[in-house]
């Protein structure tokens, strides 16, 4: 009887100490997002991030890599080796953007994969296989959740947009497929985010982080070219036949912003 009384008394004291007279509770980090205004489906952020990245990749592929070849600039998967005087291939540019997102500690993450990858470590596995198969029929994005990773996932078709995509993948010694043609779905870009909704601030921050990652990835390429024996001129001009020149970061990012502004307005501002 006495023991129960003492136990009840101790519990009461502990409850008063911890909950009645205690200082204000610490904020719950997981609830901060929901306290920051109305929430927006994460699909809006994934779509916005993908359209910015897709535009940057298209500009890099067509205006830097394809035109760069005409200006005697080369691009190689061994580009990072100090003795190799080459730039990043488009797929590796995407990987560099993914790395720069991570360096910003962004909640958004970006990956590239395929069912016919050059490197087997880029092959889809598990849930992604079925989702990618469905995507190849209609080329429409697929959205799904991976509870084991606590991630929301968006999968977007990656098309062979330039002759270089087709020839490089068909001719690579480790390619599992040699009959790619323009317009084929060569793989998919995967975006992940840890929550199913975002606040307006998180949406704007996520999009800004993608633009910043693109700027940093392109800056990495420019820095590499300045170590070439015949370094290209960097300024306001794009490479063209006989002109070994490259746009500076501001010019490159301005082109990406020009190409994406109307779509971002519709997707992330007007929600159309």
């Amino acid at each position, binding site marked *: 009887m006495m023991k129960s009384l003492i136990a009840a008394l101790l519990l009461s004291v502990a409850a008063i*100490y*911890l*909950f009645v007279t*205690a*200082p*204000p*509770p*610490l904020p*719950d*980090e*997981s*609830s901060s997002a929901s306290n920051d205004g109305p929430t927006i489906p994460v699909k809006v952020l994934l779509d916005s991030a993908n359209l910015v990245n897709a535009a940057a990749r298209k500009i890099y592929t067509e205006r830097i890599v394809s035109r760069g070849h005409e200006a005697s600039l080369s691009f190689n998967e061994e580009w*990072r080796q100090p003795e190799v005087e080459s730039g990043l291939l488009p797929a590796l540019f995407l990987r560099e953007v*993914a*790395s720069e*997102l*991570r*360096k910003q*500690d962004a909640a958004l*993450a970006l*990956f590239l*994969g395929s069912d016919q990858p050059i490197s*087997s*470590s880029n*092959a*889809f*596995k*598990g*849930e*992604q296989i079925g989702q990618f198969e469905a995507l190849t029929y209609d080329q429409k994005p697929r959205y799904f959740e*991976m509870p*084991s*990773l606590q*991630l929301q*996932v968006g999968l977007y078709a990656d098309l062979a947009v330039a002759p270089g995509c087709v020839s490089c993948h068909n001719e690579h*010694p*480790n*390619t599992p497929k040699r009959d790619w043609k323009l317009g084929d779905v060569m793989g998919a870009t*995967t975006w*992940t985010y840890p929550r199913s909704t975002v606040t307006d601030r998180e949406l704007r921050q996520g999009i800004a982080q993608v633009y910043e990652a693109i700027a940093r990835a392109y800056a*990495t390429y420019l820095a590499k070219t300045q170590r070439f024996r015949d370094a290209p001129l960097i300024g306001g001009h794009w490479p063209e036949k006989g002109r070994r020149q490259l746009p500076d970061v501001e010019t490159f990012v301005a082109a990406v912003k020009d190409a994406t502004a109307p779509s971002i307005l519709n997707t992330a501002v007007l929600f159309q």
Partner: protein
Amino acid sequence: MTPGHDAVGCVSCHSASPGTTRQQIQANLAYLLGLRKTSVAFAFQAPTVAICQGCHSRPDDTHPLHRVSEPRFADALKSVAANTCLGCHQEHRGKRVSSRGEFCSACHDDLSLKNDPLDVSHRTLVAQQRWSTCLGCHDYHGNHARQVQKKLAEAYDVEAIRSYLADGPDPYARAKRHLAREKP
């Protein structure tokens, strides 16, 4: 301490947990009762990836953390939590690598190279499950300034690798591509 961390002070990696001890007890009780979604560390917080990368981030890491954060590696992460530094490098154990060193199978069990540079094909090594040989040629983060061997007989001895993953001498190369920064 992990080899190389002898001169690293506690507060270089651990920041104080928010709130008073009373608030921390309160928050964790609420967490246990299901009244809040996140718990709170007592006294000091565990180091984050960002803190590790303050000194160790490298532009050409051959296994960057974000690569294995992809959905396709969900099953692999059950074998080895290679999406965080602490998944393999737990501090205060006196070892370079705290996870088992033969985890390559988690991601590379379907490895097949058409243009294989090694004299014994990677496909054969995978089929024979010779996972202890991988690190004999490949250092995981690729931070040693060296060329990868092209003959399996020249791979470093398994025991030499295991010793290095503990706290032994480095068999790969003396020169590193990037030195750890002394301050973030």
